[in-house]
């Protein structure tokens, strides 16, 4: 109920404000939240700390941009390519790496993200290197061009609703519960006849595909893509949303994604001071609630339950 109301409310944002600034924040919030929810699938549910999300974000941005600017396709085809390429890359990277232990996995995904950054900067023939690809055109559908920020917002909003809806269906199913089980106790999962590998691979690939599409849409919101698109800032933002929201809590991360996208903007009086205040809020939140807001609420519920059952 709350969720549907929230989604509809978010949908009418451009009707309440005409400020491109606020609508722009709305676009970012939609896209960042989806990327955070995708990371939550991989990290929060399955327990795989993946820095590769940054690479998938970049690949998605470049795949969509290049589809339009170099290969003569349109924006929508670009998004499909972003998803397909990312899923394929995730399977290729994940298959050997997920067999190793969790620590090795973290390192490999970090190296992967750096590799993508290097390709974006140094494969000049394809990506035009540090110059980047400016002038990404407004997407159009059935002759309607999403030229204004307000109209572009609807693309981001529709994508967020679809992606979050899909990921919710996945996470709330037995598949999602199995992912949590794998994170909590992998030997027990195996003793119950479940092979963890296909689940981990699927989570990694789906997370990659969704993150890639988010990246593709974000590039067209910025209207330019260059190696800065792979700035570690983005990875940090997704990770913070997951941690604050509570790794493994679906709606906790959605809420954190929306709030944390807006927060740095709300605190916009001085750039340096803003980052410091932001940092302090983060630090306090993490010290007081190490498992995020959702974890804190679950802990309180557990305490009540223990009291009731003793």
């Amino acid at each position, binding site marked *: 109920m709350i969720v549907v109301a929230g989604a509809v409310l978010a949908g009418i944002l451009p009707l309440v404000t005409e400020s491109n600034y606020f609508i722009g924040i709305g676009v970012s919030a939609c896209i960042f939240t989806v990327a955070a929810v995708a990371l939550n699938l991989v990290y929060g549910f399955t327990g795989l700390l993946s820095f590769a999300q940054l690479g998938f974000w970049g690949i998605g941005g470049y795949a969509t941009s290049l589809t339009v600017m170099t290969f003569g396709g349109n924006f929508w085809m670009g998004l499909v390519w972003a998803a397909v390429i990312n899923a394929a890359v995730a399977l290729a990277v994940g298959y050997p790496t997920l067999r190793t232990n969790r620590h090795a996995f973290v390192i490999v995904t970090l190296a992967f993200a750096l590799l993508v950054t290097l390709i974006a900067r140094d494969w000049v023939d394809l990506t035009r290197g540090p110059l980047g690809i400016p002038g990404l055109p407004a997407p159009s559908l059935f002759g309607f061009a999403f030229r204004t920020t307000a109209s572009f917002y609807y693309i981001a909003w529709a994508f967020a609703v679809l992606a979050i809806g899909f990921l919710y269906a996945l996470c709330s199913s037995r598949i999602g519960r199995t992912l949590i089980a794998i994170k*909590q106790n992998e030997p027990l999962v*195996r*003793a*119950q*006849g*479940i092979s963890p590998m296909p689940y981990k691979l699927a989570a990694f690939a789906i997370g990659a595909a969704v993150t890639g599409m988010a990246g593709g849409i974000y590039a067209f919101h910025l209207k330019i893509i260059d190696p800065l698109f792979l700035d570690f800032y983005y990875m940090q933002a997704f990770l913070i949303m997951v941690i604050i929201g509570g790794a493994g809590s679906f709606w906790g991360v959605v809420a954190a994604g929306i709030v944390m996208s807006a927060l740095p903007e709300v605190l916009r009086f001085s750039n340096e001071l803003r980052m410091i205040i932001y940092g302090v809020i983060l630090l306090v939140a993490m010290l007081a609630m190490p498992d995020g807001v959702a974890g804190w609420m679950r802990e309180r519920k557990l305490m009540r339950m223990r009291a009731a059952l003793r």
Partner: protein
Amino acid sequence: MDARAEADADAGGTAVSAVLEVRDLHKAYAGVRAVDGVSFDVQAGSITGLIGPNGSGKSTTIDGISGFQPLDSGTVRLGGADITGMASHRIARAGLMRTFQTVRVYERLSLRENLMIAAQQFDAAGWIDELLRTKRYRGAIAAGEARARELTRMIGLMKYWEAPTGILSYGQKKLVALAAALMPKPRIVVLDEPVAGVNPTRIREVEEVLQTLNAAGETFLIVEHNVEFITTLCHHVIVLDQGRKLSEGSAEAIHADARVLEAYLGVAPELEEAEA
């Protein structure tokens, strides 16, 4: 006591009704011969005990059987089919469910969810069914829940049905692990120290649960430290020492021998044991 299992066991362990056949297992850890040529059978419908002092290779034996430790040599047959060297999840699917010496449950999931996960690999609903919530999926859920309730009632934890298992005591978690292993009605259930750390007054309840399930046809292989528990419950007992089979026989025979064994092995009914 089950006369049939008794008879089969006395026939020398080669009867066709052996659900699990273990032959000449060997496993060394960096020079330590943890299991050194162990062979035995578990008859269908029996409760078979595997006892021995700490470090005698009981856990290593069942880890090898269930695919959790690669074996150096030997063969394992389940229902006549060779399962040696198969991945642990495949062995589980073939019908061998096990518990762990150090209790394993999904602490953050409810008791209900713990049991439902344990059975999900064994029903007909696939990923597509799950995403679309098809009739087949709903049927599988209903059947699973019915079984889960039956087992939860049996272990007396119904009031924790929706509670995360993390709030349960160690002994209660052992019962949850037992119930989870029983969920898919496997061919054989292998229990690694099911009553270690369980409150002595509740051990009797565990015995009753196991006897009820056995009367309904379930086969058990139980590793225990508690000689009393093993000899009251088991039809057939195998004694390990230093990775080798020391003796084997009916519970009565082993029980009669128990004093000798205790003197020789130092087997005492230790309830608590800190071991990985």
